[in-house]
């Protein structure tokens, strides 16, 4: 878009420029969120061998708009004994930080709301503020279910920030910078996924947990504490959490994953002269497609697994993801300090990270290993009654 500003010869005030870019991000985010809700319903429907939304609009494409309109016209219910200001502000405290993470993401080369030198650090730090929103909602609702859900979610969200940080930290060590543009630019020959597969897995799991999606959705356990901290919310306030925050967060983190691990707009041929003036279009498509794959993977995982109990969830974070995350950072440090040659460094990183991934998988297998299927099921089939 700097292209367009240049064409029109407009020389903008810095604040106006930021404001306009922000508007573009808002519009794209809203449309994307609606599209993602529709996509999830159709995709999960496909997994469950049913059709998904079909009637509102051609093949149900207008379903999200219909839902948004319905939620806007709903009665605004607030418990009489709820703490007024905390109750009203909690959804916004949850949503705004997620939106602010979108400010540091470069969607194309050179297009971002602001190019922050500490971009990665900013994203991770800001997304941690959402915990306060969950706690506010749970406390202010004056409801035991909400309180239980809020306490659980506070524990979960704070714990899973650490693997999130470690995942992106490992990559930023490889790139040598916290600036997202630099990290993406460095992946012109190899995406970081090949250099660092273990942090990618850790990041995927941590994103699922940060967004409270299945299998980590014990705070908003649908079939037990229906809604968790958000059980007293209705109408548009409810949709700010469950629709906007969750899907905007999903989209934002997927773009982060695509930029940092899958090569972003650089890999495979992002900045080659082949595309001429339209390289920005190719880069945009590339980034969105990559994030699309991450989103689909997360939706697939969400639709398949039962949820983990809170103690199992915490054990998984602190006993599995955390040690391996730290190990990865340590190994990265060693390799990066002592490997002089580029190729040697790349190969070493790939080997060490791959080895750590295998070890982590084996550790999970050992921890959750159950007696083999034959032992479990076989004892049942062989039993006949005494006669």
């Amino acid at each position, binding site marked *: 878009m700097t292209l367009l500003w240049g064409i029109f010869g407009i020389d903008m005030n810095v604040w106006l420029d930021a404001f306009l870019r922000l508007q573009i991000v808002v519009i794209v985010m809203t449309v994307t969120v609606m599209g993602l809700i529709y996509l999830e319903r159709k995709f*999960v429907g496909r*997994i*469950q*061998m*049913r059709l998904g939304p079909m009637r509102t609009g051609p093949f149900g494409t207008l379903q999200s708009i219909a839902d948004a309109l319905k939620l806007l016209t709903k009665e605004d219910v607030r418990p009489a004994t709820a703490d007024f200001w905390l109750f009203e502000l909690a959804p916004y405290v949850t949503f705004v930080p997620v939106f602010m993470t979108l400010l540091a993401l470069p969607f194309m080369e050179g297009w971002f709301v602001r190019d922050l030198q500490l971009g990665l650090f900013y994203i991770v730090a800001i997304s941690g503020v959402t915990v306060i929103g969950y706690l506010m909602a749970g406390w202010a609702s004056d409801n*035991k*279910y909400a309180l*239980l859900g809020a306490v659980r979610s506070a524990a979960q969200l704070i714990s899973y920030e650490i693997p999130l940080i470690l995942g992106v930290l490992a990559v930023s060590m490889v790139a040598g910078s916290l600036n997202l543009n630099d990290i993406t630019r460095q992946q012109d020959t190899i995406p970081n996924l090949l250099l660092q597969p273990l942090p990618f897995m850790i990041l995927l799991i941590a994103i699922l947990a940060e967004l409270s999606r*299945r*299998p980590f*959705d*014990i705070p908003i*356990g*649908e*079939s*037990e504490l*229906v809604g968790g901290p958000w059980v007293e919310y209705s109408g548009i306030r409810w949709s700010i959490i469950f629709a906007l925050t969750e899907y905007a967060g999903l989209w934002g983190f997927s773009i982060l994953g695509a930029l940092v691990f899958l090569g972003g707009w650089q890999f495979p041929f992002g900045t080659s002269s082949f595309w001429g003036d339209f390289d920005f279009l190719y880069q945009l498509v590339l980034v969105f497609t990559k994030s699309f794959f991450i989103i689909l993977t997360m939706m697939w995982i*969400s*639709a*398949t*697994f*039962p*949820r*983990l*109990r*809170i*103690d*199992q969830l915490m054990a998984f974070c602190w006993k599995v993801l955390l040690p391996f995350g730290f190990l990865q950072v340590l190994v990265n440090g060693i390799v990066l300090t002592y490997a002089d040659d580029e190729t040697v460094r790349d190969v070493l990183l790939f080997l060490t990270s791959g080895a750590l991934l295998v070890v982590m998988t084996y550790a*999970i297998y050992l921890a*959750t290993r*159950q007696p083999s*299927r034959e032992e*479990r*099921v076989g*004892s*049942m*089939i*062989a*039993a*006949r*009654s*005494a*006669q």
Partner: protein
Amino acid sequence: MPHEDQLQVEHELETIDLNINIGPQHPATHGVFRMVIEVDGEVVTDVVPHIGYMHRGGEKLSENMDYRQAIGYQDRTEYLSQFNAELCYVLAVEKLAPALAPPERAQYIRIILAELNRISSHFMFLGAFGTDLGVFGTSFVYAFRERENLLDLFEEVTGDRLMYAYFRPGGVAWDVPANFKSRVEWVCEQALIGASDMDRLLTDNEIFIARTRGIGILSAEDAIDYGVTGPMLRASGVRQDLRKDEPYAIYDRFDFDIPIGTNGDCYDRYLVRLQEIRESVKIVRQALEQLPDGPILPERMPRLLRPSAGEVYMRCEDPRGEYGIYLISKGTTQPYRLRMRSPSFCNLSALRQMTIGHYVADAVTILGSTDIVLCSVDR
């Protein structure tokens, strides 16, 4: 208690136990059921179930009906295993009226339909159990796809998808359609595919195993003390199945296994019910082969049935346990007393024993694994 070694709770602070009401309207309670759980942190210390929301006086109403009209109430009491309840009822009436011995074809049709109903009831359990654990809808939808096949078959035979009123004392009300054998064979194949889908989805899944193994353990002695029957009892390791121990109807002509569990936890109950689907398919296939032609009601059916005076207790192996009918007749057209022994009621009485010491999330899992039918608990 299972989690005592993992929890070191420091009781320096004065804490009060929290009372959580998993209320009558809840997505996870399988019906209108209320549980008040006392919770210390996340660990359950006491469970008080409140039932009675679905009491409609079925036993009393049956006293005002004659024997054919009262069949409808059996369906509505056990709304997931209707044919088994109806079977128990008609067998009880036939005990008091020996002139109404059902012909062979009717016996085989009854057994086929009862076992197919067992399959559909266990599919309902598989679907609802996955949902209680948090699988978003995938297990539920897979289970219901299989149930739809079965319900379509039942609609072709009896006319109704859920409330059949098909069995009569003396046989069945009307004959099955001409394509019965091929339809039932197709339904059995689909049921096996569905069971293997659920198997691959859940049985080996580490998250599922971590959520259900070691949860809600009920030892064999406790199970017998509480009067628990059916798959819950078998999962605790007790070899008890009324179809083998006291063969009623014509169950002694079929060759099938009964799956027995070892630990008595939720995982074993799930496995027992999954395996029972396969065993029921075996029974249905054998019965289909042996299905004879012939009449479906005895030659001389009285217009109004008057069984001889007396009392009888008949019990059958319902998908949930032992469903019993205690019938007192004074020789008139209406039963003097019709008492239904509900398996879910007795299985539910073990809930407190199984839940204390576990987490709140497990309470929902355990309740799901008891597989109760609220209309049967409350009649």
